[in-house]
């Protein structure tokens, strides 16, 4: 091969590498890289109270059967906290950074090949990532923190079971992962009433405006019909935001409630967390419209009493 041909080949290879997978390709292949069915755990839902975030998670995940049950050797894992706002951890606008770090470490211990952290933020993403403390904590724990502020990071996925939302652009990190762990923080929400596990899905999609303009509560339920459901939902209720959510104004909106919930059943965990919240501020389950709508889509049950629940007070 002479030099000219060699250079041509090199250039062509380079150009090919930059071509991105198209949306259509994703649709065709999504069934093949969907997560394998997770192993059943001893409990449907574990609720922990009274400890520090890390200690509560350690206890809770042990009761769930350990992280290795959900994260297998060589997995690519996404840990998806709420990093929506340019707020320090004490203001409860975002997930607790210590909890995020602990989950990442347990994933790595369980043999995860790679742990990725991101959120589609509301405030300027660089400020959110930095001031939430999550970027630093996640990096220190060994995760890769990736951006989510540009549409090109997202790929269209169809949601055949959705009622209002028939397709959505989902962040590529979720689509390319083996499993993902949903780690919301427990907050009051001006529009959706509550922001918990289901509402946290709005941080994996690009076009949130569509949700708001096409029946928000229904769209929140619809997005949870995503074939690649979170393998675990971990609700951070160490600090909850009782008023002025989801952004909050000041410390006066925050309650140090020291709670934590873990479940694979997204409707059940959000129901449990809403009931927990209801102790601080009146929040009837029927007012949180997306709970019943998700139950109607067979995404889980609001009837916690019928589930195998483990409650731990520390």
């Amino acid at each position, binding site marked *: 091969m002479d030099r000219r041909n060699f250079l041509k080949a090199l250039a062509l290879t380079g150009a090919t590498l*930059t071509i991105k997978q198209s949306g259509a390709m994703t649709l065709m292949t999504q069934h093949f890289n969907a997560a394998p069915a997770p192993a059943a755990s001893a409990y449907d839902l574990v609720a922990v109270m009274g400890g520090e975030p890390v200690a509560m998670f350690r206890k809770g995940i042990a009761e769930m059967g350990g992280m290795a049950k959900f994260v297998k050797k060589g997995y690519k894992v996404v840990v998806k906290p709420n990093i929506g706002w340019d707020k320090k951890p004490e203001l409860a606008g975002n997930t607790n950074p210590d909890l995020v770090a602990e989950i990442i470490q347990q994933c790595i211990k369980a043999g995860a090949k790679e742990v990725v952290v991101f959120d589609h933020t509301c405030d300027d993403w660089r400020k959110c990532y930095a001031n939430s403390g999550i970027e630093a904590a996640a990096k220190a724990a060994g995760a890769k923190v990736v951006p989510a502020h540009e549409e090109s990071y997202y790929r269209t996925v169809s949601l055949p079971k959705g009622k209002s939302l028939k397709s959505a652009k989902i962040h590529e990190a979720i689509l390319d992962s083996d499993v993902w762990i949903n780690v919301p923080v427990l907050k009051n929400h001006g*529009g959706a009433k509550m922001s918990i596990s289901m509402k946290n899905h709005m941080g994996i999609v690009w076009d949130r405006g569509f949700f708001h303009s096409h029946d*928000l*509560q229904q769209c929140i339920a619809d997005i949870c019909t995503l074939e690649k459901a979170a393998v675990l939902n971990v609700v951070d209720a160490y600090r909850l935001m009782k008023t002025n959510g989801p952004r909050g104004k000041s410390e006066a909106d925050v309650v140090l409630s020291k709670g934590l919930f873990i479940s694979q059943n997204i409707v059940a965990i959000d129901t449990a967390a809403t009931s927990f919240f209801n102790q601080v501020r009146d929040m009837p389950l029927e007012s949180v419209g997306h709970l019943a709508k998700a139950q109607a889509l067979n995404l889980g049950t609001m009837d916690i009493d019928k589930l195998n629940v483990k409650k731990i007070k520390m």
Partner: protein
Amino acid sequence: MLRKIRIVVSVTLFALITLYFLDFAGFMPQGFHSLTKIQVIPALLALNIDVLVGLLALTLLFGRVYCSSICPMGVYQDIVNRLAKRFQKKKRFKFSKAQTVLRWSVVGVTLIAFLFGFTFLIGLLDPYSAFGRITVHVLKPAYLAGNNLLESIFTQFGNNTFYKVGVYVASISSLVIALVTLLTIGYLAWINGRIYCNTICPVGTVLGFVSRYSLFKIRIDENLCNSCGSCGRKCKASCIDTKSHEIDYSRCINCFDCLEVCSQKAMKFSYPAQKPVQQNANGIDESKRRFMMAVGVTGLAATQVFADSKLIKTSKNQAKRTIAISPPGSTSADHLLDKCTSCHLCVSKCPSNVIKPAFTEYGLGGIMQPMLSFEKGFCNYDCTICSDVCPSGALLPLTMEQKHVIQMGQVQFILENCIVHTDGTSCGACSEHCPTQAVSMIPYKNGLTIPHINTKICVGCGGCEYICPAMPYKAIYVEGIASHNIVEIKKEKVEDVKVDDFGF
């Protein structure tokens, strides 16, 4: 030697200020904004006495060092000139007469226009601001595209050093102005060196006047000079009259190129007590003078006409701002007109891409001046970058506490457009983004909540307007106010709430 020092200093300052304008990732410390504060016009408008005295002293000592090394537009012209030499090996300059009348007419017209609120002209001609706009509107898109290219390559190999950024035009009018400035000044520099500096630039004219009295000057030792004329051919300011052995110090920009080219060592940068060469200002061109006056008068008249006309489109449900929202720290649009030269450093530095150059929203005199626009984002409650970097005092520095209570505009709600009202479904996106809860959700029909506004505590950040999903017309927007207010935000008491049980 002097020439080499000049080149090193110029190139360093030029590279730093350009990079500072381009740097979106914040890898350059904020301290570099002092490079913009030492520029003449911003310092003048900010009444930055230390800088002004320093620059005056510098000029009185050594002449137009500002023009040769500190002004990025000057260095840009030298770069173009150097490129031109590559293509035209025999490029030569020759002495030309000073355009004294034209130069002072420009200064006069600019000054009068400024006093009458037509700030556009000084912003257009100020070399630093013009360079800033070229960097922000022409160079930066290329810089961002380059970043995205690197991002795609690095990410292929699993390296996350770079992240993607949106590349878009902040304002078509400012892009056009920046491009025309770039090409015009570039063309002039290509064909004849520092023409802009010595015929148009008001800073050049004033500093040129001062430098006639400077202590150190380039002087020709007539005893050594053999009248070869090479200094004159080398002079990109065309200010050396080799026949009469005179240098027009009002135009010499201290590039020291002549010192190096003189084989007789007859050119010296020295300070013998020699009377400065008086430039005769005869040869006044009457028609030119009339022309300049006509331009000035027409310009002034036009500002008055345009400033009074307001663009109000009234469609029933369409939210249309009638008063532009001036950035934090600007106190009012009038203050901007007094201080802002539209260098667009704030436009470039705003992390949320909220600051955009105005077209005629502030009137004709305020074309290119910064205003808030909520298409790409909203003003971050906990951010003071724009007012931190502004070199001319147009945006006065704010502490975080001051920023939190400054009202730049007031929220307006159009019920007929609101999703909750039209579709009967939940939304609340506006309230979600409101940092002071000037937009809060109150009970509505069927267990729904609907926005309720309290303009008294609205800071005008535009979070609500940016995020409102109502189509085609937004249900909530921010209306500008004539001058900024201070809002009173009540401090809420922290209640001690205990949670003892699971609640289910």
